[in-house]
């Protein structure tokens, strides 16, 4: 799974509590259908994040009566997200400058 999975999931969870299926659909919607993950691969990532104590989970019964595992971001998760965001922005700005230079040369 891509390295972007962690910040993506953490960002989605920072919007509020959510469950697996909805998280995948959100990624799909946000990317306009461009990002298609193999659905099953999301869950090991979620469990790894839970093991790293970045998120926590709770089984709950939905309105339809179906039992779902809801995930919520923890303070450590929010902190990690902030750090990763800063890293991404840094990399993004450096690459931007490089590519700008390259397009000028072209």
């Amino acid at each position, binding site marked *: 799974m891509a390295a972007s999975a962690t910040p993506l999931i953490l960002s989605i969870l920072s919007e509020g509590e959510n469950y697996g299926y909805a998280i995948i659909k959100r990624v799909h919607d946000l990317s306009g259908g461009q990002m298609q993950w193999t659905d099953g691969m999301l869950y*090991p990532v979620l*469990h790894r994040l839970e093991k790293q104590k970045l998120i926590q989970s709770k089984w709950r019964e939905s309105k339809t009566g179906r039992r779902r595992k809801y995930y919520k971001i923890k303070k450590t998760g929010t902190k990690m997200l902030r750090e990763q965001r800063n890293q991404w922005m840094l990399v993004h700005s450096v690459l931007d400058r490089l590519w700008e230079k390259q397009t000028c040369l072209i």
Partner: protein
Amino acid sequence: MDACPFGPGSIMGETNMFDLNECIKKWRVGLAQSQSLGKKDIDELEGHLREEIDHLKESKLSDEEAFLVATHRLGDSVCIAEEYAKIDYGHIFRRRFFWAVVGVLVYLLLTYSATAVEKICILIGGMGGVSVIGLWLIGLVSRVAIVITVFYFCCRIYRQNSNNCKLIGANRFVRYGNLMIAIFIILFAIAINRIIFPIMASRILDIRDYGLVATSSSFAKLLWSIFLPVLLVVLLKKLHKPDDLYEVGT
């Protein structure tokens, strides 16, 4: 590759009563075989699968088509299991260790209890004035009776196919309670075997007769040491098989 016998497209075009729950059950079996997923993990994935199937059925797909598309989107069971295994869940090892400990405890419990019962029978016989040969026979017969009883109960448990958790205790408190009881019985049996019996037997029998009676015990113990571990291994293997993982949710 499809684990479901109700595959797509029958030859003569007859309707092949597609059973969604049956197919999902088989899909669960496929996931459970890797042993890197627990029941709750499989429940979670099944929940996802069902939501996807419901979503696809809204787009007018049949049960069968929805199932195939949903399982395809979810991904290959083997790959999923591999990813779960990488997370290095301690609980899988803890579970195996736990069942190994249960097995050892049960072995100790049964062995010491059996010896204690045998010795009590011999004491009663001795106090009733039974001859030495009679006591020898009592020892042997009581052992055989215990073996048959244990075997009978093990067969019942085996056939009942009951949830392994129900046997040791449905919740943590019951389990600890059962553990305390088991340890108490073991200690009590040891007390009978090592303390009470020698003291009382020395009053009833002289040393030679005691030795004679003990030979039946030794012979029985040899058979017991072979029979019981085999029986327990077979039984625990059957109980450890995650049958309860195959239950289909809503």
